[in-house]
């Protein structure tokens, strides 16, 4: 067993490295193929041709793409992701500043998705075709079809009209002097420093962006959970337990939920990609000042180094999330442990 697990991890790591390599190559080439000169954009229209050429040489843009890529990767492996043209700081510093904000938003969103959609999926399956189911299905269709920026704007309008005191911009009220470190996640840092007021304020700030971001996932996962539950409710093993008088709540919430969580978890891993994509938009609407807003500026300004870093880290996120999902799945399903080891 031990050897099989190690083999599995090795195989997994190798494929992750390959994916990251291809991703980096693609985005590196793409960023250089699209029109627009980063040096010119950084220096502005008043700079002379010599100044632009000088900056190009400094950035290595006069070299062949393959040489540029080799140099970039060489530096990246040593932890140097280059300078940002927009902030004029090392990209690693920028990332360290902006990433926690997004991480916090995404984590809270994932929690929100599970907390809302799993019970909703169970309820709609259990009371199939009754009013609970109809309301739940309408709600999930609503979440899947409406784009997240519309939710974001809608929630802001709602807050503006009915709860004028509710914060709709930024992560935290600056007058509160939120404590720094150690993680950069406000919810954790505030508790670490015993600042309960900051915690509540950060939570208030998080509520709407997280909800706007979560709606699509909630819709999707509710539907998947519902259909998995309905499928499994018909199975013989449910009848076995019922025939021996095991209470319905145990049958549904213990036996069925564990079996039916396989599909939603798998989908959640895949959903993670669109979650990151949507975060770009939602962060802009709520002035979140996170990693995604940073990436958006990088794209618009052709800030090559920042762009590379944002894409690679998004990719890493996605891969890591799916790794976690696989781990969770193999904990749930003993058959997967066996097959995973064999495949």
């Amino acid at each position, binding site marked *: 067993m031990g050897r099989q697990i190690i083999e599995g991890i*090795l195989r997994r790591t190798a494929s992750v490295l390959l994916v990251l390599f291809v991703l980096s190559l693609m985005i590196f080439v793409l960023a250089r193929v699209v029109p627009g000169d980063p040096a010119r954009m950084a220096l502005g229209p008043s700079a002379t041709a010599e100044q632009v050429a000088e900056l190009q040489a400094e950035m290595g843009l006069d070299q062949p793409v393959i040489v540029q890529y080799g140099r970039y990767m060489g530096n990246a492996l040593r932890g140097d992701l280059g300078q940002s043209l927009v902030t004029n700081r090392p990209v690693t510093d920028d990332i360290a500043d902006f990433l926690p904000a997004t991480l916090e938003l995404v984590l809270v969103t994932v929690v929100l998705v599970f907390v809302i959609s799993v019970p909703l999926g169970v309820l709609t399956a259990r009371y199939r075709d009754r009013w609970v189911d109809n309301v739940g299905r309408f709600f999930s269709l609503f979440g899947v079809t409406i784009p997240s920026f519309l939710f974001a704007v809608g929630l802001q309008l709602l807050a503006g009209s009915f709860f004028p005191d509710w914060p709709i911009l930024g992560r935290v009220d600056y007058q509160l002097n939120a404590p720094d470190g150690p993680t950069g996640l406000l919810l954790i840092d505030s508790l670490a420093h015993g600042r309960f007021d900051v915690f509540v304020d950060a939570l208030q700030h998080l509520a709407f962006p997280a909800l706007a971001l979560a709606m699509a996932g909630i819709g999707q996962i509710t539907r998947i959970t519902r259909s998995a539950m309905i499928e499994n409710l018909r199975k013989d093993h449910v009848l*076995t*337990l019922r*025939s021996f*008088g095991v209470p319905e709540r145990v049958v549904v919430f213990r036996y069925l939920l*564990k079996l039916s969580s396989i599909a939603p978890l798998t989908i959640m891993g895949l959903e993670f990609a669109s979650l990151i994509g949507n975060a770009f938009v939602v962060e802009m609407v709520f002035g979140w000042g996170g990693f995604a807003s940073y990436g958006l500026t990088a794209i618009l300004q052709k800030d090559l180094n920042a762009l590379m870093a944002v894409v690679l880290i998004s990719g890493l996120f996605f891969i890591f999330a799916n790794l976690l999902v696989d781990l969770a799945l193999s904990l749930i399903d*003993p*058959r997967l442990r066996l097959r995973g080891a064999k495949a």
Partner: protein
Amino acid sequence: MALLDVKGLNISFSGYGQTRQVLHDVSFSVGKSERVALIGETGSGKSVTAKAILGTLPGNASVDSGAIAFDGLDLFRQSMAEREKLKGTAFSIIMQDPLSSFNPVFRIGQHLDDVMYHADRRRGVVSSARERKARILDTLRKVQLADAQRVYDAWPFELSGGMRQRVLIALALLHRPRMLIADEPGTALDVTTQDEILRLINRLVDDEGLSLLMITHNLGVVRQTADRVLVMRHGVIVEQGPLAQVFDAPQDQYTRDLMAAVPPLYGPGVTDQPVSDMPPILTLTGVQKVYSKRGLFKTGEGHLAVDDINIKVAHGEIFGLAGESGSGKTTVARMMMGLLEPTKGKIAVNGTPATGARRLSQIVYQNPGTSLNPKRTVAQTLAVPLAHTEAAADRQARMEELLTLVRLPVSFLSKYPHELSGGQKQRVAIARALAAKPRLIILDEPTSALDVSVQKTVIDLLLELRESLGLTYVIISHDLSLMRNFCSRIAIMLKGRIVEQGTPAEVFAETRHPYTRALISAIPVLTEAEQAQKPTVTEEERAKFLVPTGAEVSAPAGAAE
């Protein structure tokens, strides 16, 4: 007084605005320590009867009138909680399908413990986890699961079908009920395993003085496990009486038809198919197949599926490949069709070496319910092979011709599979196989998913088609009583090898290999006379050749066919 007394039970199902009555005025009783069999085919209402007693009827069922009394207690007048309390303690059910009756992501022991914990709680008994486990292990040993601890810790997929069926029996016995309801136990298992399961149930019922309500469609099983018989059809009990009376002198026409549809194993009713003297269409010489496994760093050793297979199938013959699950019969059939390549050995078609009879062969699968695409009409299903063999203009005529061949009305072309009965679906599957004008048809358990009375009509149809179209059949099955009457020659397979080959008359009269004897002796038969003619197997032979269902944790299921 009878232990269970069902009186004038009427039950109907409603759905899509329609109400359909499934039980009509059903009355019967089961006495203390009495064994009663409820016989019926698919949809006859026998399972509904069991569910009504247990209290697990689906939500769309309604009891219109009638009463069920258990030991004088009127079940329909009890509160929900009172009825729950009876589950498992007054009566309990042995579930039908061992492979699907356990939740795959929970350990066997978890299922047993939860059932026991909640049953204890309902009765107001406080039990500790350790004490429950001791009781569970005791019960597991009672159903001849020697290594009870390992079974307790196993995941469902780690146990063989026979072992899981034993656990299902243990589940039913956990709280020493007074009556067992057995819903087709072992039907999904190999014949030898099924035989052992039935013996086990019989012994337990004897030892503990239980009453038994055996629900089954297999008349052979009934003879072994019942004192009294109820025959049910379309929700009506058409005949009931002591076993001997019903079997020796059936009064109702339906009972007589059921009895007549069971292929006899011995005696004057047995059919001997003529042996073909034509040249072979298919010759397998020294064929071997290894499924190899691949690891990351090295190629692992393979799994030897079949070895040293020598078969000649003559034109016009019905060749039977018999064996239990995992014996390699499906692998052999796939190599015959050219779907798999042998690792070693030669295959010749009509005397010339070939990779299998690809162009000449077609297959009819076991379960027409799953082998037909539910989203395609019969015409669309038939159109697939016809697209390769007929010009577009001739296709309609050919479809009509095919349906006529399998005795279905031409109007069925526009029907979807769900509108057809099991037998009709299997006819469509046969028509599909015939569409490409094959010379050789592989029949993979063609009747095992069908009711007995339908089986007979499908077999008769296959025999006629062979006659009129000059076909050759290779039939894969574990149903030896069917093969005795249907095949002109049979080969018995055990663990990938052929252990015996010959005409059915020879093989059944003078069984050479002990495994064949064990297989034949496990077949449930209808009469004492046949029972007496079955070969006997010693316990050593049984231990040597039969899959030990009681002791060993098998390879994960799913690898087998």
